[in-house]
């Protein structure tokens, strides 16, 4: 019985990976906002995550969060908490939930939801100031979120 369940779970994960993971509206958040499984179905790449974290046109996380491990990245923000050691006191599941939609963990937080596509007020088309046309893409892809989480997990005291 256990073996069967494991086999089924294995098939499910493989299927999710083939279907490009979990769509933003389908993500299941735990009671405290954590997300158990990879959103893309694949593992994150910490080096790619570091780039997404630091680059204005990508995640731009550094706009609000400072990280000592990125001495080459100027103008680190202070709107959100500094993230040194966050990989030590948060699990990957918690960090995945916070990056995807931090409001599920911290009610009312200023932090934007990076893997969300509905429920917005006057959604725009990028930074044009015009209304969004057609389906909205999340700010980060499922794999982008996984990469950022992998990078955050490298931040150990």
């Amino acid at each position: 019985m256990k073996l069967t369940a494991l086999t089924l779970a294995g098939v499910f994960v493989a299927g999710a990976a083939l279907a490009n993971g979990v769509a933003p509206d389908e993500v299941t958040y735990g009671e405290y906002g954590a997300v158990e499984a990879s959103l893309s179905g694949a593992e994150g790449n910490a080096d790619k995550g570091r780039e997404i974290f630091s680059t204005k046109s990508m995640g731009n996380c550094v706009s609000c969060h400072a990280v000592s491990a990125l001495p080459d990245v100027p103008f680190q923000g202070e709107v959100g908490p500094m993230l040194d050691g966050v990989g030590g006191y948060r699990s990957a599941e918690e960090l995945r939930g916070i990056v995807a939609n931090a409001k599920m963990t911290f009610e009312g937080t200023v932090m934007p939801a990076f893997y969300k596509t509905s429920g917005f007020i006057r959604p725009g088309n990028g930074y044009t100031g015009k209304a969004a046309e057609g389906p909205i893409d999340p700010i980060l892809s499922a794999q982008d979120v996984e990469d950022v989480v992998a990078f955050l997990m490298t931040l150990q005291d």
Partner: protein
Amino acid sequence: MIFRMMTAAAAMLALTAPMLAAGGADDDTLIINEDLEITTKAAAAPHLDGHLDEVISGWHFRDDDTQAMEMDDFDNPGMIFVDQGIDQWNAVEGSEEKSCASCHGDPEEMAGVKAVYPKWNEEAGEVRTLQMQMNDCRENRMGAEPWKYDAGAAINMEALLASVSRGMPVNVAIDGPAAEAWEMGKEMYYTRYGLLELSCASCHEQNYGNYIRADHLSQGQINGFPTYRLKNAKLNGAHGRFKGCIRDTRAETFSPGSPEFVALELYVASRGNGLDVEGPSVRN
């Protein structure tokens, strides 16, 4: 910062260093042309209870070089546009062959006007910004074409009218017939727009004093508008700034002169009640 004060400031540095590291408002004093002291910090109006204790001009969140530009009219690039506004003030236009000066005299006669706008207009039954009132004059008294909202000529004139009210406290009315627009503006201020789900308050109430990338967040006060921005090297109106801010939340923004921005201007101006008019200011 005045150079005489630097020694005292240096002596204080050990005490204030932790605060400076946190990026808060500085303690400098804004005196324009070595003569006119501007109230740049004031107790918050009662309607801000539970939101802000003190209201602070954006001047305090800028570096010393930028602050200094506003302390002398010869160094303030915004005053070039005030000069253009004076030319416009005296220019006869329209079917009635009148200028602003024909009815109002010198621009200095308008001292205090900017401080109470936006303002309810009983006859029109609406809250009007200063630019709306200027265009009412142009269309109905001068027989001239209205100016485009927040564009060159209108901003120049608003800057002129602000400049003659410098040093007078902002005091916009929020009750009575203005209350409806004020409530609408307040609701907008706390609405989290766009894909980034940010409200005005997310940055300018909850995070003023903090850095967001290289930008030092202020309280978003508009007592210094129109403001000359080093970033785009021109005078900027409050509505243009509102438009840009909401756009930057990845939202469908609103247009300058729209009823939404008129309401928001009334509300944001009221958050600065008690601060002195300081336009045209100089900012990043």
